[in-house]
């Protein structure tokens, strides 16, 4: 596969490490009353969609950036790639 890195352009996915669902960026509040339930939901439960999937890849053999990649799990077509840090900053701003 090829991941079109936002700043480095198309790179072989073999340079990357795949982690999983991009929702792993939304770590729950440890002080919530149902924190254990929330963390359980966060860490273990998955939508696992057959279709567009937002997922985290790490450019280990590259610029060490984490990316949020939108990829179709049926066709493998990648429609969007963003720097995860930018996404996380946006989320932090809007929350």
């Amino acid at each position, binding site marked *: 596969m090829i991941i079109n890195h936002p700043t480095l352009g198309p790179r072989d996915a073999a340079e990357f490490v795949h982690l*999983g669902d991009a929702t792993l960026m939304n770590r729950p509040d440890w002080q919530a009353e149902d924190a254990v339930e929330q963390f359980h939901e966060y860490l273990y*439960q*998955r939508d696992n969609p057959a279709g567009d*999937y937002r997922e985290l890849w790490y450019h280990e053999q590259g610029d060490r950036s984490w990316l949020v990649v939108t990829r179709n799990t*049926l066709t*493998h077509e990648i429609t969007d790639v963003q720097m995860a840090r930018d996404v996380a900053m946006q989320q932090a701003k809007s929350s």
Partner: protein
Amino acid sequence: MRYSGFQVIKQGLTGNKGWKPVWREPEPKKSYDIIIVGGGGHGLATAHYLAKKYGQKNIAVLEKGWIGSGNIGRNTTIVRSNYMLEGNQPFYEHSLKLWESLEQDLNYNAMMSQRGILNLAHSDSQRDAMARRGNAMLLSGADAKLMTADEVRKMVPFLNFDNARFPITAGLLQPRAGTARHDAVAWGFARSADQHGVDIIQNCEVTGFQMKDGKCIGVETSKGKIKAKKVAVCVAGSSSRVMEKAGMRLPIESHVLQAFVSEGLKLTIPGIVTFGAGHLYISQSDKGGLVFGGDLDGYNTYAQRGNMPTLEHVVEDMMGLMPFLGRARLLRMWGGVMDMSMDGSPIIDKTHIDGLYFNGGWCYGGFKATPASGDAYAHLIATDTPHPTATKFRFDRFLRGGMIDEKGSGAQPNLH
């Protein structure tokens, strides 16, 4: 029709014109006691045991394509019970015992061949972890043999002992492990289930569940609505997609595992060997092809195909371990979609919806589990209590902190 050598000769002498269909092709009835969603190995095995062992009647298996066209039809055929943890080992040993009498149970030769599996260790701590595993196997009544490097060399002299980057320090052998002819397992279970009155309905896709008062009362299918007292889902590779129709999220991701086969060769690898410094398992089929595989590709997918890097890694491992295979050729590669669970272990459980059962999350260990999975699932469906060997395969283990994590990889499915 009973199968036997006599039957083969009798039919042969009459032009092989007397063979009968191995299963009927019935139209679905309006309702069943039990509907099994998924005509793969586990679904068919469940039907077989429900009908034959647990005395259930009025059962249907619904398969969206052709029976046996999922992972039972695309795997590397290994059967073993070399597990370590309490939640797993007795279950897989139960499975291995069922394998050992499967052909007689089914009157179908699935070519279960107990040629042994040898896991290689390449460091002292790996050896010690193997000892722990081997001891767990012995504790649950399985067989295990810890071998020294010299013993390994005597047994499989063709491995790279003299110029290896990661020398072999020991091995764990399970002599009773082996391989089986994977398609035949599905066909054998299907034939038996059919003979016990189970309706196997092919090309019948489940498109939804019928719910009433929070209870599951049947399914909607491409062949219309079918009522059932109990609906048991067993659709490895599609678990999330199917359970989503019941509004459930699962602790499962879908990943592709590739498998590979070489051109036919005269016998060169008698048993099964796994490489401990990489990701490779390899055996040779009765037909002569080297059947091998390695790790997941690593990304979530529902496409039944993988990519080059995994193939190359696997063969690099092969050439590191068995450089005499350099001139053998890869003939075919394919991919199967695995239900990768969050701890690498399966789920056989009731759901929170009455009448709806779930069996999945087999990761890439589903084939060897086929008979026990069928037996345990049948037990659960028939009695509403878990089979004694499958008591830990519950949904709630993640919330309660009772993970069954053989590899110690944590909640990252692509590492299991």
